[in-house]
């Protein structure tokens, strides 16, 4: 029988219901019998069931983010001018037909929603703008300890001290997304169909499959990513249009003070943004010491490596590594430039080594509360 025959009305109806996910079990059996007679329709069914998209004016994630930023400032204006009563009256349906029927069933649904919502949002509050729909898992390390894990896709992650990684139980979306605060080394399982993104406060690193290090602690004034092999794309949070491509052994440093995201709706937040200058980003090569240890990833081998770094930066690493608070009692000492690679040494041994090698010496002592003072 020809597929265009007028008796085929039932075929189209069932195919439509299948497309809309409105088909019943019996209808499904009926449809597969009909499709055996019409292989063309079977092929069309597959096309009907596959993913479709807008053919005109497709909105990217960047477009949507930009739209929300714009929307936020309109929302603020609406508050300030409080002429919103008009908008409400115009738009919102006056007759609550849609929801009236449901009120009785709400109580039980509400409880279920609350449980789900609580779980999702408790985690999301800690996170970045790139919110993920999945329920998130979290791995966190205390100061003085490190951790390792394998993500659901086989990607290996080493988490340095005082760090936190949010990741989904399963990577179900088009993109494998995780969020990092602190320092971690990623060895990403390659998957061209599902890129891997790491969100941090300062930037998002986008890769297909490669190995790289990210250092993005909340208390440090810059964040950096260093690529060990392959290639990655880094998208700056402050300016989504600004994407930097990194190749093996390259490092990107981004000042963080200027990329703080607005958490709250504040009346004058727009002014603040304008005052901020475009972050000055720096692309360099990764640092190696005399023994060819890559300084940026030395922590993974239980080594602490510094090469010509300021004492204040080094102190930040030492604080996390040894779970100790360090305070400078002499501002000038913060700027000392120091180098050294350590493995297994105590904090005191490291500081003594610095004292012996630096161009200018310093003193240190622990106060009664265990805080380390440098002067």
């Amino acid at each position, binding site marked *: 029988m020809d*597929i265009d025959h007028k008796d085929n*009305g039932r075929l*189209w*109806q069932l*195919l*439509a219901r299948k*497309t*809309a*996910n*409105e088909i019943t079990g019996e209808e499904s059996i009926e449809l597969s019998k009909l499709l055996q007679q019409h*292989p*063309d*329709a*079977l*092929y*069309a069914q*597959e*096309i*009907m069931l*596959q*993913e*479709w*998209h*807008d*053919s005109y*004016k*497709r*909105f990217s*994630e960047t477009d949507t*983010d930009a*739209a*929300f930023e*714009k*929307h936020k400032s*309109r*929302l603020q204006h*609406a508050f300030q001018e409080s002429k*919103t009563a008009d*908008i*409400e009256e*115009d*738009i*919102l*349906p006056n007759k*609550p037909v*849609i*929801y*009236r029927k449901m009120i009785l069933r709400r109580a039980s649904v*509400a409880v279920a*929603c*609350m449980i*789900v*919502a609580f779980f*999702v*949002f408790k985690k*999301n*509050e800690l996170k970045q703008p790139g*919110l993920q*729909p999945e329920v998130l898992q979290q791995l966190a390390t205390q100061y003085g300890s490190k951790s390792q894990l394998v993500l659901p896709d086989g990607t290996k992650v080493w988490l340095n001290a005082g760090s936190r990684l949010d990741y989904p139980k399963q990577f179900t979306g088009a993109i494998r997304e995780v969020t990092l605060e602190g320092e971690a080394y990623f060895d990403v399982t390659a998957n061209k169909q599902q890129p891997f993104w790491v969100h941090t406060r300062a930037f998002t690193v986008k890769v297909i499959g490669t190995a790289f290090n990210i250092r993005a602690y909340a208390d440090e004034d810059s964040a950096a990513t260093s690529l060990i092999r392959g290639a990655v794309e880094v998208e700056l949070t402050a300016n989504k249009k600004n994407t930097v491509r990194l190749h093996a052994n390259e490092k990107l440093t981004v000042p963080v003070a200027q990329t703080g995201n607005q958490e*709250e709706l504040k009346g004058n937040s727009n002014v603040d943004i304008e005052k901020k200058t475009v972050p000055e980003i720096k692309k360099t090569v990764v640092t190696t010491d005399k023994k060819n240890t890559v300084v940026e990833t030395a922590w993974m081998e239980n080594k602490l490596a510094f090469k010509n770094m300021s004492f204040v930066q080094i102190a930040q690493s030492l604080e996390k590594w040894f779970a100790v608070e360090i305070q400078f009692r002499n501002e000038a000492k913060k700027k000392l430039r120091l180098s050294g690679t350590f493995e297994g040494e105590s904090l005191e041994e490291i500081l003594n080594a610095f004292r012996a090698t630096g161009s200018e010496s310093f003193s240190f002592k622990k106060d009664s509360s265990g805080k380390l003072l440098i002067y």
Partner: protein
Amino acid sequence: MRNNELINSLFFEVCTNNNMKAYEQLYKMLYGKLVHFSAAIAGSFQLAEEIVSDVFIALWQKRQQLSPVKNPVVYIYVCTRNASLNALQQRKARNISFENLDTDALAIIPDVEERLVSKEVALIIEKTIRELPERCQLVFRLIKIDGFTYKEAAELMDISPKTVDAQLAIAVKKITLAIKLHTPTHLVNSFLKS
């Protein structure tokens, strides 16, 4: 695909806990779809972007009264429909129906990345859909892209679920015939074997 459970819990968070993060996520999840839906009615993407923003401003302001809403997605679409119709009325002062829609905003096309269809056939499918009555195009879009059920689409368009069923069947028929006409038999066979 639409994740109803997530949307419901986001909406619930906004209404009961004033959660701005949830509001942002809800906005971003629905933004593209709502703009297309609104532009189809209002006939302007620029206007549609403002309309969607207005809908969400109203949503934020009325959030404490909205917890009894049964189906948040349909509710937000109905708000968007009303706002779009209002905007159109103001612009053109004429009778409103789903007969004068912007077909650019409605147009959809199968992903070619799935390798089921060639680029050429995908374009023919798009053209075929664009030649359907506009109401029929809207039905197809609401089912395929926005993930509505028959009942939800019917409510939104003020027609019966039976009409939705019939309109969708027309769309499916035309698309299938167009595919058959433009795909060589050996390609269909090779697909069926694989």
